[in-house]
């Protein structure tokens, strides 16, 4: 058998493989396929639940009701509140984290030993469990002894109730989200900044181009793929935020922080209304699906480029 022939029959080329070789990829990915199916089954079930009148406490009323659960939302102020809070929370966290993360990445751009150490230390909030991070901030904002309550009182604000006051609850959870997730944007953009080619910047420096022009016309456009990737990752996670809000206030005070997943969780476990809970999650899934389609398209382009260079 010649070497060429052997290469052709090898399963590594994938084509013209021996009978056993042809099944090899399928055999190797069989376990992952099973996991996929195991995820898809509950997912399809959830879609079916969303079309049913299904309450755990009233099982005999269970039945198919078409899209009634969805239609009910249209006239339900609680649903519109959930949609509004989720979108406001997402917009605030993503925009603020993006600006802050970009700023920090620019500060740490030059790869000195000190800058590298800072960027590593800044990863610690990101590696803290978000639910635990919420508890940390809860201790720091305690009205009795919290250090942050004490610090704002030094500035004459004596009655700031942080997460337990409807007017400052959103601000407080957004602050925790920023603390946890800004390092995510920072680390991605920093990797992006440091991988940019040097020539355009050297040329601009030689020509004496002003710094603001360099930033808006060279740095930002070249960084765009990284900014898109980082912000879409955050967008998808943020609109589904559960841990921080649940650990901090369980969606309260009142319904001030009732984002999608917290609302769905309470519908299911407190009001035992499986149908409504599933319908809420399907709407959230639809929103994230639209966002992830945009995301995956951009992401694949970037990934292909990253591997092309490697």
């Amino acid at each position: 058998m010649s070497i060429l022939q052997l290469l052709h029959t090898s399963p590594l080329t994938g084509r013209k493989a021996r009978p056993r070789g042809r099944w090899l990829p399928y055999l190797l990915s069989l376990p992952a396929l099973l996991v996929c199916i195991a995820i898809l089954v509950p997912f399809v079930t959830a879609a079916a639940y969303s079309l049913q009148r299904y309450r755990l406490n009233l099982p005999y009323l269970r039945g198919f009701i078409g899209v009634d659960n969805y239609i009910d939302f249209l006239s339900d102020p609680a649903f519109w509140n959930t949609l509004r809070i989720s979108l406001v929370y997402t917009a605030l966290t993503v925009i603020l984290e993006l600006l802050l993360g970009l700023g920090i990445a620019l500060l740490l751009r030059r790869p000195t030993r000190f800058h590298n150490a800072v960027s590593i230390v800044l990863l610690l909030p990101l590696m803290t469990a978000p639910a635990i991070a919420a508890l940390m901030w809860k201790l720091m904002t305690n009205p009795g002894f919290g250090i942050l309550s004490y610090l704002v009182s030094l500035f004459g604000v004596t009655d700031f109730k942080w997460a337990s006051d409807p007017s400052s609850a959103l601000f407080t959870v957004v602050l925790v989200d920023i603390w946890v997730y800004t390092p995510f944007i920072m680390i991605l953009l920093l990797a992006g900044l440091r991988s940019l080619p040097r020539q355009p910047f050297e040329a601009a420096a030689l020509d004496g181009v002003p710094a603001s022009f360099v930033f808006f016309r060279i740095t930002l456009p070249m960084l765009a793929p990284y900014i898109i990737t980082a912000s879409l990752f955050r967008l998808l996670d943020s609109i589904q935020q559960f841990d921080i809000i649940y650990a901090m206030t369980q969606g309260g005070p009142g319904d001030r922080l009732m984002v999608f997943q917290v609302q769905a969780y309470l519908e299911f476990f407190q009001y035992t209304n499986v149908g409504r809970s599933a319908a809420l999650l399907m709407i959230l899934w639809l929103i994230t699906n639209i966002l992830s389609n945009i995301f995956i398209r951009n992401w694949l382009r970037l990934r292909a480029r990253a591997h092309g260079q490697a």
Partner: protein
Amino acid sequence: MEHSSLAGRIFRGIALALVLVFFMFPIVWIFLMSFQTNEQILRIPPRLVFEPTLGNYAALISGQLRTTAGNLEISFVHNLWNSFALSSAAVVLALLLGVPAAYAFARFKFKLGETIAFTLLSFRFAPPLLVLLPLSLYYQDIGLNDTYFGIVWVYQLIALPLILWIVRGYFEDISPDIEHAYRLAGHSWREAFTRIAVPLAGPGIAAAGLLSFIFCWNNFVFALILASADKQPVTVGALAFVTASGIQYGQIAAAIVLSVTPTLLLALYAQRYLVEGLSLGAVKG
């Protein structure tokens, strides 16, 4: 972009200092709090100099918490053990399932492979409750509710996409020629896989494993729904602990420190790979 002017350097120095304070202060403060008695914590104004005590940690480890309502038995150490056991088992399972699949996706172009990879990727971005709520009803029917295996199984939702996408990238970066040469020497594909491909992708596999461990450890919502008190990991346990211990703030702080220390140490150790891991291989660090 070089700001070598004095004003520029001062501005950057102040900005960096503020950034460091904002991101480090909570961790440092809770750490200090965990060595204080309740009386010290409740003092106003708060003091930075205090007589440290190990009492909070001792109470947590012995499981006997003194509260105003009397002695309370809470086994936080058991929560720590649960976190460790659940996350490790989930990562081992995900590596066993994911590494061969990642190899197949990298080496063979087949439609099913792409479908699986993308289904898992899209579920990484789907609301976890969408899968969890129906699953909790199924679990009740088939008796998997509140079992370690049941929780480890859903942790695959976190670990498997991460391992598949990162490790696949590493396999793609290894030239198939090396494996061809090894096969030409008369070795089977299995030997080429275990002796050539896996060792060469070793750093990627290790990074993906470490990151999966961190994300499983940090997960909250899966165990909140599927685990009762004695199967709960630290994330859920700490929240229950806050409710139960009420005003024992020093002990709460100590519980927080114990919960985050393992992942923070691992993160420092694995920081070289974090960029790739966090972006599922989209951005190379």
